[in-house]
């Protein structure tokens, strides 16, 4: 593996500066955001590198659990922030975070115990990257699905209530929206699977190849990861949409848009 020096990274960073300068001249208002995002990414990844270094040096389940919890909470915050309208109170954070926890953690555990079978099973070199990839993808799926669910319920409140008025149960009135939200959450991973290897070379596999792994071994790991991500995103999205749709109604099957932010009451 060829090691990168600080100078090598600076060369690439110079290109980003060039991009920022160009967008500033065009007046897109993006220059500052590009620079801040690039700086954030650099600092965050360097910190993660350090954390992983420490974590790998002394393998202890407690530390791994702590890091995992931190990752989960940050992902939960991100899911909340990506919804234009979200449930008020603890529900806004809770539904997304709990769904991610249930799907990402159980799929990661399954992969570690049943497939990889390391000693000890929580070997951070495997568990943390695996969990990170799962969380990152379920996060996207759940955020898109919940955003779609809440927006559609808000926009189509008249259609939903028309069905309630005629005596249809809430579950039936929200069903098309629920279906549409799950679809929206799952489309990215379905597309990623369909395009993998033809249009795009997935990042993880590319990384392993750059690190010197034999291509076929890298491909097998990538296939495993894709399956796990699809399953994690799928179950996480289903759970989040199910819980979110229930919370939009009360026990008397009333559409409770007042439970969403930005509803004015």
């Amino acid at each position, binding site marked *: 593996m060829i090691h990168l020096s600080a100078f090598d990274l600076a060369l690439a960073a110079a290109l980003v500066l060039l991009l920022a300068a160009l967008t500033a001249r065009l007046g897109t208002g993006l220059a500052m955001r590009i620079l801040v995002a690039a700086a954030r990414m650099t600092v965050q990844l360097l910190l993660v590198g350090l954390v992983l270094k420490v974590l790998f040096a002394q393998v202890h389940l407690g530390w791994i659990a702590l890091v995992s919890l931190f990752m989960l909470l940050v992902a939960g915050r991100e899911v909340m922030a990506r919804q234009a309208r979200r449930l008020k109170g603890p529900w806004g954070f809770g539904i997304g975070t709990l769904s991610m926890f249930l799907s990402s953690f159980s799929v990661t555990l399954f992969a570690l115990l049943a497939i990889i079978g390391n000693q000890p099973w929580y070997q951070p070199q495997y568990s943390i990257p695996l969990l990170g990839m799962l969380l990152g993808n379920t996060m996207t799926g759940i955020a898109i699905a919940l955003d779609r669910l809440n927006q559609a319920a808000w926009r*189509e409140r*008249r*259609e*939903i*209530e*028309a*069905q*309630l*008025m*005629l*005596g*249809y*149960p809430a579950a039936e*009135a929200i069903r*098309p929206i629920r279906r549409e939200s799950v679809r929206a959450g799952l489309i990215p991973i379905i597309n990623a699977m369909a395009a993998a290897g033809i249009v795009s070379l997935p990042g993880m596999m590319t990384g392993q190849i750059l690190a010197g792994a034999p291509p076929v071994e890298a491909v097998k790991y990538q296939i495993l990861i894709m399956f796990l991500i699809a399953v994690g995103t799928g179950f996480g999205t289903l759970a989040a949409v199910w819980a979110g749709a229930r919370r939009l109604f*009360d026990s*008397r*099957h*009333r*559409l*409770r848009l007042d439970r969403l932010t930005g509803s004015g009451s």
Partner: protein
Amino acid sequence: MSAQPRLKVERLSIPGLLAPVDLVLAPGEILCLSGPSGAGKSRLLRAIADLEPHSGRLWLDGTPSEAMTPEAWRRQVGLLPAESGWWADRVEAHFRQTPGADALADLGFNAPILQQRVDRLSSGERQRLALLRLLENRPLVLLLDEPTANLDPANVDRVEALLLRYRGSRDAALLWVSHDPEQIARVADRHLDLRDGALHAAAGAAA
């Protein structure tokens, strides 16, 4: 009229909008409701249909609303909103059973209307079809929010005649929001005004 009221409303209130309201409708009674816009007529109707959180209690033929499932309550206490909602593309998909030619003719339609796209309908057509859709459930109480607001005179006559006939066939009680004094004079047994969050006997009406 029997002693049991068809609909009984006791201390129904919506926080910040409506002071506690008491209301009793006998079987076959038509109660017209008027009042300035924004007074809360529509939300009172929504609360009686149990679509809106409220305090107070509701009874249908002596059965409290909480003893019925919300679906059963709303099938029996049917709300016709001022603006109807349509969730499918074609008219026909909004009916549990395809309406017969007679039912359509009562409201001035014939069968091809069922294949129409909802977004091609006029607001008056939507209003009349929403009424037809609602009557499919054979509700015992009708909550009507300006049911003839978008209609031409011939269709106002059709809708009024249909509602009066339906009232007779089912002994249904009707809570009818209207701003038209002549219509109120034609159909109402009683007339109340909703002003400042409370019900008042309407001026010049047999209350």
